């Protein structure tokens, strides 16, 4: 008892307070989202707020269990927990209940459990456990690939459900690798690839190619700070483009504009490389290679998308990106979501006074689109407050992670930070129309037992590790 008591004394109060604040605010907003005049009892189990009330009570119990469990348990059983959850992810593909064409849920009596939500902390434990011993080798390819495989495996299983949104979450764990020594080049290339992938599908390919080239010249100027070589480069490119256009007119006749641009950039590269070589301008070579790499990537994405993917796969990606709206109402949902949030104005309409959110026009009102209610009823001030809560929590968690004496605890801490961060950023970004529609919950706010419990376990394991950081050097 005394040891348990001391654990409670050492647990980080600020994090717990923010956690409690978030689940209370979450519940209030779920109540507002499904509120109607006919059902007003708080514990009405036919309504979502009634059920969420029960999930919250359960999550508090779970939090207590997560804290009183010996911290060495998490360390020693990390792989077992990970393995068990992977098994559940496999089983759900066969035994899961088919909801909206995806097998993501186990139905146990009247309770639906989503193993995806629990796989997040299991994967974090496994990644922390693996890197604990080898973090100084992260620049070795084998270690890097194994670490990546640890979180790509559950992501793949989740894609098979299929639940693209939840799978995206696991990519956030690259942030952990970045913190632990992965080359920033790898990280930047990865982010660049994701951004370019999305841009390629959204924007006209010609503009994108042109934009990349302009960006490369800007970067070149930024590096050398001289006009002459940059202008010379532009001149060479223009000559190359004119030459290619002429060649196309005379010989090929059917090249598209972006293909001409691409080939011109490649050809003029020959002229540049002589310059780079003679002046030993290595940075410029790097910029040029980045440019060519991006151009190849952009054009191959387009090719893959149009020629290799099957129509239904294409459609799924297009819906995911909001390029094609309303097939399953995604584009429509975003529009409704923006109207709701936008209509909140600066100070909001007041609690339970939202009109847009009452229209029942957004089906995921209390789950993925819970932020609409916040935006509409609490306005920009409410949005600011919620975002501030997340930023404070995440920065606090960074502080906690950095004060760990064991690598395991710190790495696990960064896993928690990465996962909470991507959920927070993507969810609010999606609801406000900044990011494409990726249906993932807002941690501690969204309706749903599995998500709430998953995030609670994720967070409280770390708070427990932190509370006992001085006891064991696990």
């Amino acid at each position: 008892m005394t040891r348990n008591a001391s654990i409670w004394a050492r647990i980080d109060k600020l994090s717990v307070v923010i956690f409690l604040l978030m689940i209370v605010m979450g519940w209030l907003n779920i109540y507002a989202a499904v509120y109607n005049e006919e059902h007003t009892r708080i514990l009405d189990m036919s309504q979502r707020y009634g059920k969420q009330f029960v999930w919250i009570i359960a999550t508090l119990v779970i939090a207590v269990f997560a804290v009183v469990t010996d911290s060495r348990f998490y360390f020693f059983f990390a792989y077992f927990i990970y393995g068990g959850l992977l098994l559940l992810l496999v089983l759900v593909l066969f035994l899961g209940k088919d909801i909206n064409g995806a097998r993501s849920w186990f139905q146990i009596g009247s309770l639906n459990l989503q193993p995806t939500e629990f796989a997040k902390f299991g994967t974090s434990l496994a990644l922390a456990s693996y890197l604990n011993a080898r973090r100084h080798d992260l620049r070795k390819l084998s270690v890097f690939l194994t670490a990546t495989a640890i979180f790509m495996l559950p992501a793949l299983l989740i894609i098979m459900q299929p639940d693209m949104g939840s799978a995206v979450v696991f990519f956030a764990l690259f942030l952990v690798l970045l913190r632990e020594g992965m080359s920033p080049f790898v990280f930047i290339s990865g982010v660049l690839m994701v951004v370019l992938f999305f841009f390629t599908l959204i924007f006209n390919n010609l503009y994108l190619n042109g934009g990349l080239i302009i960006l490369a010249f800007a970067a070149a100027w930024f590096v050398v700070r001289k006009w002459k070589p940059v202008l010379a480069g532009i001149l060479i490119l223009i000559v190359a483009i004119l030459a290619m256009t002429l060649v196309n007119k005379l010989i090929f006749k059917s090249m598209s504009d972006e293909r001409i641009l691409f080939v011109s950039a490649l050809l003029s590269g020959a002229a540049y490389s002589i310059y780079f070589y003679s002046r030993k301008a290595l940075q410029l070579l790097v910029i040029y290679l980045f440019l060519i790499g991006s151009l190849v990537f952009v054009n191959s994405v387009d090719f893959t998308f149009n020629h290799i993917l099957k129509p239904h796969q294409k459609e799924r990606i297009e819906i995911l990106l909001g390029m094609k709206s309303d097939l399953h109402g995604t584009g429509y949902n975003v529009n409704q979501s923006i109207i709701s949030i936008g209509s909140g104005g600066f100070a909001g309409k007041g609690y339970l006074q939202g009109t847009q959110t009452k229209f029942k026009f957004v089906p995921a009102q209390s789950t993925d689109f819970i932020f609409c209610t916040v935006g509409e009823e609490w306005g920009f001030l409410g949005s600011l407050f919620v975002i501030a809560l997340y930023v404070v929590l995440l920065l606090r968690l960074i502080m906690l992670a950095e004060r760990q004496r064991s690598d395991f605890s710190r790495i696990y801490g960064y896993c928690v930070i990465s996962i909470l961060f991507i959920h927070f950023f993507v969810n609010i970004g999606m609801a406000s129309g900044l990011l494409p529609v990726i249906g993932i919950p807002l941690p501690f706010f969204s309706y749903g037992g599995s998500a709430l419990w998953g995030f609670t376990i994720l967070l409280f394991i770390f708070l427990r590790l932190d509370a006992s950081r001085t006891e064991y050097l696990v």
Partner: protein
Amino acid sequence: MKDQYINRKYLIGSIIIIAAAALLVRLFIIQVVEKTYRLSADNNVLRYVTQYPARGLIYDRNGKLLVYNQAAYDLMVVPAQVTRMDTAEFCRLLGITLPSFRERLRAAKTYSRRASSVFLKMIAAEDYARLQETLFKYPGFYVQPRTLRKYSRPIGAHLLGYVSEVDESLIRKDPYYKSGDYIGKLGIEEAYEKELRGKRGVKIFLMDVYSRVKGSYADGRLDTVAVQGQDIISTLDEDLQEYGELLMRNKTGSIVALEPQTGEVLALVSSPNYDPGLLVGRVRSENFSKLNSDTVFRPLFNRALQASYPPGSTFKPINGLIGLQEKVITPFTMFGCNRGYLFVSCHAHSSPLDLKGGIANSCNSYFCQTFRRILENPVYPSIGDAYMSWKRYLDQFGFGKKLGIELTNELPGLVPSTAYFDKYYGKNRWKALTVISMAIGQGELGTTPLQMANMLAAIANRGYYRVPHIVKSIGNSRPINEKYLKKNIIGIDSTNFESIIAGMEEAVNGTGTARVAALKDITVCGKTGTAQNPHGKDHSVFVAFAPKDHPRIAIAVYVENAGFGATYAAPVASLMIEKYLKGQITNKDMEDRILNLNLIGQ
């Protein structure tokens, strides 16, 4: 050990802060800077008017319109916007009672006060015109255009299916559907729902406190446009379908006519049937329960795919073909018949007969002996193995399994396995003679009219079939499912078909059992049959294809409780074939006899 990457915590922290800042900028723009999303302080509201797409049209194989749309209107209500009004006048206008008015309003309130719900469904176009003039006096009410199905002729109900409103359980299962949406049920409407339905859109209007439309919200930037459903070109021949239904009036049974090479369904009649127009609009649910509760005639029951009968003598060609392919008989094998074989009796005819004569005269003895040779074939170690080999051929013909037509509720029929006999008679306790009734298509066998028509298509094609289907193409160009284009090879050499087809030709055109089906200028090849009916008079069955060379139609006709195949089924088939190939009927007497025939006594 010193952590060389410790400074990266600042990098991670910066990423978080930059991301949060991006969110805040975005939220600041839509919540504070951008004015379009704001609804001004005087309680302006938005009205979401769903733009329902027009459902795709359905055409027959010759481009004649079978199913189209007509306008109708739903009266919608937003309870929160309803103000004091002249309720009595309003009720008079709509032709509803005051209690009904109160009940409808209460139901709408229960759903939601601020969201709109349907107050009165499917108001006809005439009533709408009257209503529209005075609707401004009743804030909170507005009219939503919808469409209803309309049929150019009252035919093909089983094939076309109908359209009804989605129910709660479906809305939960499929997120596409919302309360008030239509969905296809049965027939083409169900099978091609995804293509026919199109895509819903929504228009958002800004309303003032008096519930008057002030204009499009945010310049219509947030509206989505409805996309019309795709049209369907069906394989049906409208005239042939109509004629088939006419012939089958006052009879119980079915007709399936296929184009042999393609597997396209030319006509599919199940009688008794109903006018598809009965299941449209406000009268639909009432009429549906009437049709559904008619347990005597069961008009909703599609006999062509849902009734399984013993095939009777129409099955003899199959046993002949298997016998030839297994080399237990040749076209010249002669069998004697003395009014029967053991306990299976036969009718009077010349004896002995070769294979062609056996088919033409439908000799029971001939096929009992053939079937016995198939099962007692020394090539197989046991009768079980020989039987399974026989069953494999049946499987290749599409018996004992669903063929895979687009329509739901297709029956697989029944071809018993050896396990069935082992269980029934005991293992090794049954022999060829125990199951001999299957030689003449009786006993445990069950086949649907669709399967029999398909069998005829396979014979007409001399060895293959394409899965029967009722849709030729979707929209202008979209092809149908590949499975309908694939050739299913039976595994019987095409040369083996010739003597069987010659027998079927003679049955109709020579001295055989089906002379009544003969046509001038068209060589019909057919086979009569009688399906045993334990509940009453036997069913009259006839299967045929025509012409003999380059066949264009394969047909199966079932007339229930009508006795021998030659009596009623053969004339019906003959009339159908002539109608399809010639467009007109020469034997008017036979046509009149069939049209005036009443076998259900009403």
